[in-house]
């Protein structure tokens, strides 16, 4: 956690909008930063072509996605994927994923964004029952985001995923449509 730049961010300057090709240079800032995909399945990007490919071909494959913007410049990305993609019996469940440039970590930005998206998810998808997220057991920062955003920690799935050469224990979190009625 960097403490040498203590600039706090006015969360009113944070917004969500679709990712655009013109965001590619901003996208390259977090995708080339080794710290950022440490717990992600992807490796840091090495060329702008990868950034262009993501914006043009990959971002649209998600069920829903947005660029996380600070004063309309992209500093991260948040997405939802239907769980029925991997398991046909799980059509009422959606998985949340997110990434933020490391310069913006520890300022409450991700928690703020996840809280908004939590509400958006159940509004956009009225039949949605369950929003879940899986976080590497070593990624304490991301676990805290979900806890502060009101997700329930359900357990640790041991060696649930295998990527970058090793098995990962994943902590599974969820929020149900019925939880929302009792929150915020």
């Amino acid at each position, binding site marked *: 956690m960097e403490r040498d730049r203590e600039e706090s961010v006015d969360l009113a300057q944070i917004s969500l909008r679709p990712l655009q090709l013109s965001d590619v240079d901003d996208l390259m800032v977090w995708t080339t930063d080794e710290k950022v995909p440490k717990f992600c399945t992807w490796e840091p990007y090495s060329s702008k072509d990868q950034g262009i490919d993501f914006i043009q071909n990959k971002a649209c494959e998600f069920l829903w996605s947005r660029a996380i913007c600070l004063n309309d410049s992209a500093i991260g990305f948040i997405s939802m994927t239907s769980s029925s993609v991997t398991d046909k019996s799980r059509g009422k*469940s959606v998985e949340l994923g997110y990434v933020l440039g490391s310069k913006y970590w520890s300022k409450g930005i991700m928690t703020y964004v996840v809280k908004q998206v939590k509400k958006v998810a159940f509004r956009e998808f009225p039949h949605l029952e369950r929003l879940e997220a899986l976080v590497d057991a070593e990624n304490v920062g991301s676990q805290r985001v979900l806890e502060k955003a009101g997700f329930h920690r359900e357990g640790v799935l*041991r*060696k649930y995923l295998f990527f970058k050469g090793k098995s990962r224990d994943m902590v599974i979190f969820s929020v149900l449509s019925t939880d929302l009625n009792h929150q915020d």
Partner: protein
Amino acid sequence: MSNLDLSKISLRPFKLSDVDDFLLWAGDDQVTQNLRWKTCGSREEALAFIRDVCIPHPWRRSICLDDRSIGFVSVYPWSGDDRCKADIGYAVAGDYWGQGIATKAVKMAVPQVFNDLSHLVRLQAFTSPQNKASQRVLEKAGFLKEGLLRKYTYFKGNIKDSIVFSFLSTDEFPHDD
């Protein structure tokens, strides 16, 4: 019910000739209520199910008592990047409940499965929170209960909670009691 000699329990692939024994339990709603299987309604259905599903299955075994089918154990591996994990399921004929047969069968299956599926790291099982008997089978077979997944899956038309258990290739294989 008298004490069953569990050494008479064995696991083997299904055969078409199992059909009549198969129908006794696969045709029983009590047995299939906790499975994703549809209850078998006829000998023809049972034959087709053994031929088209059980025999070509990546890893499915008949639980046998004196070589007659009284249930099954099934392991379904995920594919691609997820082939490190597989789902286990099982059932035993109603007449044979309460005698430790499912536990014995799962204990026998676990080392075989890790031997047969080379990429497997994690064997997982999902049970209904109401199905206490099945949870005890997994606990006695050495699985670790990891948590309650709320409104996790569609099961026969309804969204259900699931309790998730796992057994890892690095866990100690179960011993016979």
